[in-house]
């Protein structure tokens, strides 16, 4: 067990412990915004973990992954609007429908490679986005408010923010475990082998298309779950939840955290979303330091810093946060 105490495993343990204690902290300082922020982080981390299964381990860069967030969210929202409030119906259906869409999209997209694959997944996501925009009955462009969160026959009360947070966290850890088991199974090895050399994998007798498609469907299904959670979290669905920049965000999370590990995207989601919260204050602070005035407007321009930061991460920190952690042991 001592040998397992690398900076990497310590960081994972610390992050999980910290995530578990967030509600305690939030209640102690009476700051419920923190709880809401971390709920969002945990939900998007689920989506990023699912993307990483196909992108990091399968080499399939899907630029339309947010579509499944949208599908999952819309299933919950539409069912709630039509009076079906049971989570036992909503959530499995969200997962199932996402999986079905992933099956169709994957079967067509996986015929292409490289940039063509990136762009065809984006195209499918755009189609689904426009379908959502055209759903006049369910708010169209403006979206739809969900008045009651998913009901679980009185077993868990999702309206309670702390309970909802722990449900999301448990699902995140469950998904990480699932992906970890998948990646280390024979199935996962075939996927990774096909990433390095698809032709060779085919030559030694693996029908890699089927394996890759299965991975694509599993990733879509998990992402659909995160969409169902997100709809419950915001009590609202709109096409914006599957805007193509959201797909970009998910890629950023996976790469930022490190695609080489199952837990990396969780770190990436934490880092990106906390940066989004912190950068405005940091910029505000620098504005005060350098000009002596509190320039409230300067805080708005945080993306001016985030953009080049992403570029620098791409250029100089390959392997993301996880790569840095893994490097600590060697250095």
């Amino acid at each position, binding site marked *: 067990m001592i040998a397992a105490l690398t900076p990497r495993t310590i960081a994972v343990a610390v992050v999980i412990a910290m995530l578990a204690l967030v509600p305690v902290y939030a209640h102690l300082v009476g700051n419920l915004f923190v709880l809401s922020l971390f709920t969002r982080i945990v939900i998007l981390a689920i989506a990023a973990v699912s993307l990483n299964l196909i992108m990091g381990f399968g080499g399939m860069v899907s630029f339309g992954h947010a579509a499944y967030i949208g599908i999952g969210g819309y299933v919950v929202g539409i069912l709630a609007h039509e009076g079906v409030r049971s989570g036992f119906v909503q959530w499995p259906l969200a997962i199932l429908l996402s999986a079905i869409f992933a099956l169709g999209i994957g079967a067509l997209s996986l015929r292409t490679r490289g940039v063509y694959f990136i762009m065809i997944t984006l195209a499918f996501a755009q189609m689904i986005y426009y379908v959502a925009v055209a759903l006049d009955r369910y708010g169209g462009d403006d979206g739809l408010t969900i008045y009651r969160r998913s009901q679980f026959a009185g077993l868990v009360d999702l309206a309670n923010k702390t309970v909802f947070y722990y449900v999301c966290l448990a699902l995140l850890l469950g998904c990480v475990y699932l992906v970890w088991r998948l990646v280390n199974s024979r199935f996962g090895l075939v996927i990774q082998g096909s990433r390095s050399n698809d032709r060779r994998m085919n030559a030694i007798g693996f029908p890699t298309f089927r394996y890759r498609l299965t991975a694509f469907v599993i990733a879509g299904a998990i992402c659909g779950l995160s969409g169902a959670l997100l709809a419950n979290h915001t009590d609202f669905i709109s096409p914006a939840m599957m805007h193509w920049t959201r797909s970009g965000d998910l890629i*950023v999370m996976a790469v930022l955290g490190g695609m080489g590990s199952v837990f990396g995207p969780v770190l990436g989601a934490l880092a990106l979303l906390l940066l989004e919260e912190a950068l405005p204050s940091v910029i505000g602070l620098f504005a005060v330091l350098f000009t002596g005035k509190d320039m409230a407007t300067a805080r708005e321009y945080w*993306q*001016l810093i985030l953009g080049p930061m992403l570029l620098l991460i791409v250029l100089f920190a390959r392997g993301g946060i996880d790569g840095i952690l893994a490097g600590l042991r060697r250095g």
Partner: protein
Amino acid sequence: MLLLIEQFLNGLQFGLLLFLLAAGLTLVFGIMDLVNLAHGSLYMLGAYFAATFTALTGSFLLGVVLALAATLVTGMAVEVIAMRRLYGRDHLDHVLGTFGLILFFNELVRLIWGPAGMNVTLPPWLNRSVEILPGVHYSMYRLSIIIVALLVALFLYLVIMRTRIGMLVRAGASNREMTGALGININLLYTFVFGIGAALAGLAGLMQAAILTAQIGMGENILILAFVVIIIGGIGSIRGSFVASIFVGLVDTMGRAFLPQILKAVLSPAAASTMAPALSSMLIYLLMAVVLIVRPAGLFPAAGR
């Protein structure tokens, strides 16, 4: 019939606008093997530069020339500072790095020009309609976009097929290492190609800005369309992107104009009015999916790749 001609010309105009964007994108992709999501930012910058310079100089043409020069210089600067370091990297790195650049440019524009959009005012000689056929009037400005874009396409064709620089560009597209090994200054060629691509994007942006407005994020939606064009046309092929952009422009514009009526003839009016907007927005993505399923490398795959 009148509507049909007008919508056809609108589609042609939109397609040619897309071509200006797609040409730069496909050149950069074909030669440097770089996926540049920030191409839309250069389109946006072109529009903002034009709005500023036309207002400053009071002359539309002078403003346009200055805006083109400014976009060219910005593009070259971006290439030297950032893009150059991305060549040879994984496509995923390109997507991520240039995604960062989009965020940067959007905020930069907001910092410099403010959150409100800007208008490009047209001079009176452009802001009128002409009689193109007996009894058929069409916007002079849209007509001039068609003419300018066709001239640019012809110019590009001549430069690429008939000049030494064009020969290098073609050589670079089919075999980068060999071109470099033959003693061509690859760095300079890359900066030049990127700058030209930027200027073409800027031209598209400023021409569109006079019809709509220059606004933040204007480059992103049209960028996706430009990507659709180069994917349909086959990445790296200028000819392919020319055909595909006109195709996409026509399908998109005609679809939006006539799909509601066509659907009404087939379906109930209620079903048609809900389906038509979704279907017409999806039409080109559907087209792209079909093309990729039938020909996974586009209609005109560039040779030697």
